[in-house]
């Protein structure tokens, strides 16, 4: 008899009788009172699962993950508890990555363009045809090719670099908002080529400038783990104080103990002014050699940055100053920062994306010398034990792309290969990338698993395996302060209806067939990884052990990689007169256009749009606004009232470079002269989930950024635009979680003293007005 809902009720009635009968046989009474003796769903746990360690590829951090696999299907992604970077924790992005594996719109197999370029008309071909076409393209116009990938390190970077070099070409990583400025600042302030690790957990005082480090900046999961420890006073520790300096009310700003909304572009001046106070008042940490940092000039080296001069530049609201001057605030901030050691200063995102971003970043990071946290809270991992494995991603900036675009246009580059990158979406429209790739004179090969704004321009699509089906590796950057090599292994096979091939393996195979064996000697990525494992075995150090090379290799796969906690961080020596040098480079930020300052930001889960095809990433509400599935424009609530704009009214943002439209969201925290717009939406081509919006509620803010560089770098100055905001007359409903629920109590206690407290029932945003 088929069990339907209706006859289930009959069964339930019968089993109540059964319950009484069973009671006689001595079953536990407690269990049976309200529970019929049918098997409860909660008891149905069947089958055996396996957890495989590998690497996540959903953001440039490449966190270590374990994947639960049952009957050949991946079920759940979780942080790898042993992996030194993320210690068992994961971001929402890692979970969402599973949907890229079983995504309905994955490209099933190789395809060839049949319609005009850019129209997305493709016809399926066989792999033999596809590889022959690629070989022919390489042989005829491969010389000077451009290979664009996501930011990659270790074996993926080594193979891509060698491949490009073998054809006289270039390999560059692509990120919409690259870390070029940060990298340059780290080089000049600390003399290092890799990015530093921050031990936030051990700090007492954290001063952050612009960087949305709890959400998207560099290695957010790692910083969040530290932040949890930073906030923890349960083990007799001290709860740290966090001050965030940022013109935009970001997720990180919302978590800080104090948020200082300074006018955009003055962050570097503020940092040097803090340094000025510390030196003038002799507040530096013990053992800090001020003479060395200032070539003997002391506070005089920073005379242009006295609090009296910088204070008014900050343009802080009088309700923050409480009748004091900006100079007073800087002095108090400097004294707090210097007296609450260990202290840490970090900066990034908007603070390094103005025209003077490099100066800002250098000034901010130099503060760490004054409080003695370099080498302690700011640590540099030692170089990889295998020197041929790149431990930094070689990511292009706007300057690099401009050169390559002109090479494509003038015919120097006739072959462009793209893997897991979408530069047509992620570069400002005025850069001309889309126009260059749509020309018939360049042959574009995409290795993407999904159609996106770049893949649609391709002449040939050779879909890669998903990262959960493929081999790979990573040297995390920033590392955890010691040597790490993470290993990515296939946890499942591709589904039978899909026919992808590993990008790395294709490069190796093609390279060898075209006579480049000396550059690319491996038959597969797996073989290259195995050679690394064997070299590590011979070194006989680190976390992995094994009596034979095979056992060692298996053990390394089981752990998700190799690391050597005994390897010491690099010792950093402050460059002589560093503060004088930075002070001499000080400049004010220049903005193009007029009106509101436009501060774009990476979306919490979509990042720069690379995850827009994943429904979980799309549906995760933005932490601050709770908006999902849409682009929104964050404007100060009162400012909106003044402009006659209500929530959901579609507004146009007009910059010198273009115009977009998106619904407005009233943010009571946003300064009145700032608008914030997330990246992530506004894809012209792609899976349904990525293109669900229309022109009213989905826009790509990169389109209206002027192609201006940060002074002294090759990176895009993405926070240097001002825009006009105007209602379009249209209105849409904002797809947000806010207002769906009644209010709840948020208990606050003051300064960790349970005796003094306020328990508030604050109302959600809807009722706020």
């Amino acid at each position, binding site marked *: 008899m088929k069990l339907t809902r209706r006859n289930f009720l009959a069964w339930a009635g019968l089993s109540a009788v059964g319950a009484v009968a069973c009671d006689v046989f001595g079953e536990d009474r407690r269990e049976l009172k309200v529970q019929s003796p049918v098997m409860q769903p909660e008891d149905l746990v069947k089958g055996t699962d396996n957890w495989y360690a590998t690497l996540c590829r959903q953001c440039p951090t490449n966190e270590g993950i374990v994947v639960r696999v049952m009957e050949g299907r991946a079920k759940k992604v979780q942080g790898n508890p042993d992996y030194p970077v993320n210690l068992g924790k994961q971001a929402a992005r890692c979970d969402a990555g599973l949907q890229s594996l079983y995504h309905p719109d994955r490209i099933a197999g190789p395809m060839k363009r049949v319609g005009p370029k850019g129209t997305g008309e493709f016809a399926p071909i066989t792999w033999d045809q596809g590889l022959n076409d690629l070989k022919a393209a390489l042989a005829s116009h491969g010389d000077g090719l451009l290979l664009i990938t996501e930011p990659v390190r270790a074996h993926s970077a080594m193979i891509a670099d060698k491949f490009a070099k073998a054809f006289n070409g270039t390999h560059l990583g692509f990120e919409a908002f690259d870390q070029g400025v940060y990298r340059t600042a780290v080089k000049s302030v600390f003399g290092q080529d890799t990015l530093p690790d921050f031990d936030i957990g051990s700090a007492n005082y954290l001063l952050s400038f612009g960087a949305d480090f709890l959400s998207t900046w560099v290695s957010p999961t790692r910083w*969040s783990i530290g932040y949890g420890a930073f*906030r923890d006073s349960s083990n007799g520790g001290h709860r740290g104080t966090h001050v965030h300096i940022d013109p935009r009310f970001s997720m990180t700003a919302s978590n800080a103990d104090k948020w200082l909304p300074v006018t955009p572009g003055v962050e570097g001046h503020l940092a040097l002014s803090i340094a000025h106070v510390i030196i003038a008042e002799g507040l530096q940490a013990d053992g800090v050699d001020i003479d060395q940092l200032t070539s003997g000039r002391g506070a005089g080296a920073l005379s242009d940055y006295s609090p009296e001069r910088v204070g008014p530049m900050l343009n802080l609201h009088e309700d923050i100053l409480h009748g004091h001057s900006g100079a007073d605030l800087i002095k108090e901030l400097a004294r707090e920062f210097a007296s609450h050691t260990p202290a840490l200063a970090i900066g990034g995102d908007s603070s390094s994306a103005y025209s003077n971003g490099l100066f800002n970043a250098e000034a901010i990071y130099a503060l760490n010398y004054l409080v003695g946290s370099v080498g302690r809270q700011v640590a540099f991992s030692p170089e990889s034990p295998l020197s041929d494995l790149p431990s930094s991603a070689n990511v292009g900036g706007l300057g690099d792309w401009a050169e390559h675009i002109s090479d494509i246009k003038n015919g120097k580059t006739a072959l462009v290969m793209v893997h897991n990158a979408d530069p047509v979406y992620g570069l400002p429209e005025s850069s001309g990338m889309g126009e260059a790739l749509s020309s018939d004179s360049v042959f574009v090969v995409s290795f993407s698993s999904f159609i996106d704004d770049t893949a649609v321009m391709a002449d040939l699509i050779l879909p890669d395996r998903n990262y959960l089906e493929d081999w790979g590796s990573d040297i995390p950057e920033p590392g955890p302060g010691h040597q790490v090599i993470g290993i990515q292994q296939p946890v499942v096979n591709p589904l039978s209806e899909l026919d992808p091939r590993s990008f790395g393996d294709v490069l190796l195979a093609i390279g060898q067939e075209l006579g480049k064996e000396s550059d690319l000697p491996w038959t597969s990525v797996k073989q290259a990884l195995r050679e690394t494992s064997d070299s590590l075995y011979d070194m006989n150090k680190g976390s992995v052990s094994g009596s034979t090379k095979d056992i060692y290799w298996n053990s390394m796969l089981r752990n998700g990689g190799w690391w050597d906690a005994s390897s010491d961080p690099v010792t950093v020596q402050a460059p002589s007169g560093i503060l004088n040098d930075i002070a001499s480079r000080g400049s004010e930020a220049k903005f193009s256009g007029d009106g509101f300052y436009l501060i774009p930001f990476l979306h919490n889960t979509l990042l720069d749009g690379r995850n827009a095809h994943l429904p979980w990433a799309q549906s995760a509400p933005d932490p601050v606004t709770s908006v999902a599935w849409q682009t929104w424009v964050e404007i100060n609530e009162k400012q909106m009232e003044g402009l006659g704009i209500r929530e959901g009214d579609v507004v146009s943002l007009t910059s010198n470079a273009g115009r977009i439209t998106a619904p407005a969201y009233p943010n009571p925290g946003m300064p009145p002269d700032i608008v914030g717009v997330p990246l992530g939406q506004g894809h012209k081509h792609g899976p349904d989930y990525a293109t669900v919006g229309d022109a009213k509620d989905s826009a790509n803010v990169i389109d209206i950024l002027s192609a201006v560089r940060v002074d002294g770098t090759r990176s895009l100055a993405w926070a240097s635009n001002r825009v006009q905001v105007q209602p379009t007359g249209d209105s849409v409903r904002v797809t*947000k979680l806010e207002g769906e629920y009644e209010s709840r109590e948020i208990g606050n206690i003051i300064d960790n003293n349970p005796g003094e407290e306020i328990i508030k029932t604050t109302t959600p945003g809807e009722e706020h007005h």
Partner: protein
Amino acid sequence: MVSNRIDHKWGMVVDIDKCTGCQACVIACQAENNIPLNTKDTFLQKRVNEWIRIERYWEGEYPNVKARYIPVLCQHCDNAPCEPVCPMYATYHNDQGLNVQVYNRCVGTRYCINNCPYQVRFFNYWHPGWPERLENQLNPDVTVRSRGITEKCTFCVQRLRRAELKVERQSGNRLNDEALEKGNYAPACVHACPTSALTFGDQHDDGAKIRSYFDDVNAHNIHHEHERETRGYRLMEEVNTRPNVIYLKKVDQYPLGKGDGHV
């Protein structure tokens, strides 16, 4: 039939001071528990299904403004208002402190949803549809709920059952904090949370990290909240639902509205 169990009483402590609002718990939960996709339409219909969600509250306005985050999930109340109103006994309290929903008893009266003061019960207005290929990801340990069924957070009971089978039945060890963490047996949200704002454990285990908070809050009822030694409180204590989820208050170093001249 489950019997002869070690007597657990599960509970969770949520430290609001550590929650940054990052959404890692929200997506980890959806991946673990076969929660239907929250499409753009479900947001427009105000029918978003998140067994754990992050609520954000505004306090003040520019320039003295704070956004507060609070993760809200089923509170697994000892005096659960959802339980007595169910005509089908579809929701009941099990012997481990969990408020459990028996999907194949639920007929969709939604009385429980109306009666839950925490708004953490969700109704399947439509058949939960996934694109066919995405169904490969569904967790075989968790029932896919059909249309007309109410669903809610289970404290990832499927993980606890697997843990009991593997740790307690097979090796005879007690399922303590360490065993929960080591075997990936704690709820998915707890494992994911990067700042460790969520802590899960057994209130009957003397060594559990959550124990001191429960002891403190249990010993001091609502009328004596100032005597508590920890930051612990329960949501809506005045309705006396006795949740098995305890919140730790946000620590405010610079509370708003305290214009004491401190810049």
